C-alpha cells in the first residue's frame, strides 16, 4: 500500500477537470490505498457550500466529495492562506477540513509516497 496526496488547485466546474480528478481519487481509494486530498489556491472553491451547478449544466461535484467517506477518504487538507485570500472560512465548506499554513505545506507533502498534481 502507498499513501497518495491529491493536490487540487482548480475551481469547481472548470470543464470536466474536477470530475475526472474525482474519478482517479475514487479509483485509487477502491484499490485500498491510503488517499488524502489537499485543496490549494482556487481548489478551495471545490468544496464551497451553496453551489448550484445545475444552473450552468454542470454536475454537482461537491456532492461526490461527500461520498468519499464511504471509500475511507477522510483526510482533506487545505491551506489557510488559500481560504483567506478568497474570503472563505472553513465553515463555508461542505466538509470538515484540516488547515495548514503555506509554510507547512511542503512538510505535509513529504508525508506521502505519491503526489498527484491536479
Amino acid at each position, binding site marked *: 500500500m*502507498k499513501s*497518495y496526496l491529491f493536490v487540487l488547485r482548480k475551481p469547481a466546474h472548470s470543464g*470536466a*477537470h474536477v470530475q*475526472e480528478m474525482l*474519478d*482517479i481519487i475514487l*479509483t*485509487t481509494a477502491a*484499490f485500498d*490505498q491510503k488517499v488524502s486530498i489537499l485543496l490549494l489556491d482556487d481548489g478551495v472553491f471545490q468544496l464551497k457550500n451553496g453551489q448550484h451547478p445545475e444552473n450552468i449544466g454542470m454536475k454537482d461535484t461537491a456532492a461526490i466529495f461527500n461520498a468519499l467517506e464511504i471509500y475511507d477518504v477522510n483526510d482533506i487538507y487545505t491551506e489557510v492562506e488559500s481560504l483567506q485570500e478568497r474570503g472563505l472560512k472553513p465553515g463555508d465548506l461542505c466538509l470538515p477540513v484540516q488547515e495548514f499554513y503555506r509554510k507547512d505545506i511542503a512538510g505535509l507533502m513529504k508525508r506521502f509516497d*505519491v503526489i*498527484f*498534481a*491536479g
Partner: protein
Amino acid sequence: MKFAIQVNTSPYQSNAGHTAYQFINAALMQGHEVFRVFFYHDGVYHAFKYATPPDDELQFTAQWSELARRYQIDLVVCISAAQRRGLLCSDEAKRQGKQDDDLAEGFRISGLGQLVEATLEADRFIVFG
C-alpha cells in the same frame, strides 16, 4: 529507476506532452525504465490516429507510436476520458454502434486501474500538464 508518467494536456494546448516525450527519451538514454505512460484529461488527444499536422511541424502522435515501437513502452489512454472526447478504438466503436477507428498505433485503451497500478509499480510518478 522505474518511472510512471501521466500526460494531461493536448498537443496544441501546451508543451507538457512534448516535454514528457523528451523526458522519457532522456530517462531511457540513461538506462532508466518507463513502466507506463498514461494519457488522461485532454492528454488523450495525443492518441488520435488522424491528426495531420503540416509536414514541417512536430508529428506528436507519430512520435509516440515510434517510441512505443522502438522501446515497447506501454502507452495507455483512459477509456472514459477518451470516450468523452470522441476517441474510440474499433472494438469500442462497434460496441457503441459507431464506425470509428481513431486510436493510433502503439496506444491501447484501458481504465484508471492501469494508472493506479503504474503508480504502485513505479519508483517515481511524474505528472505532465
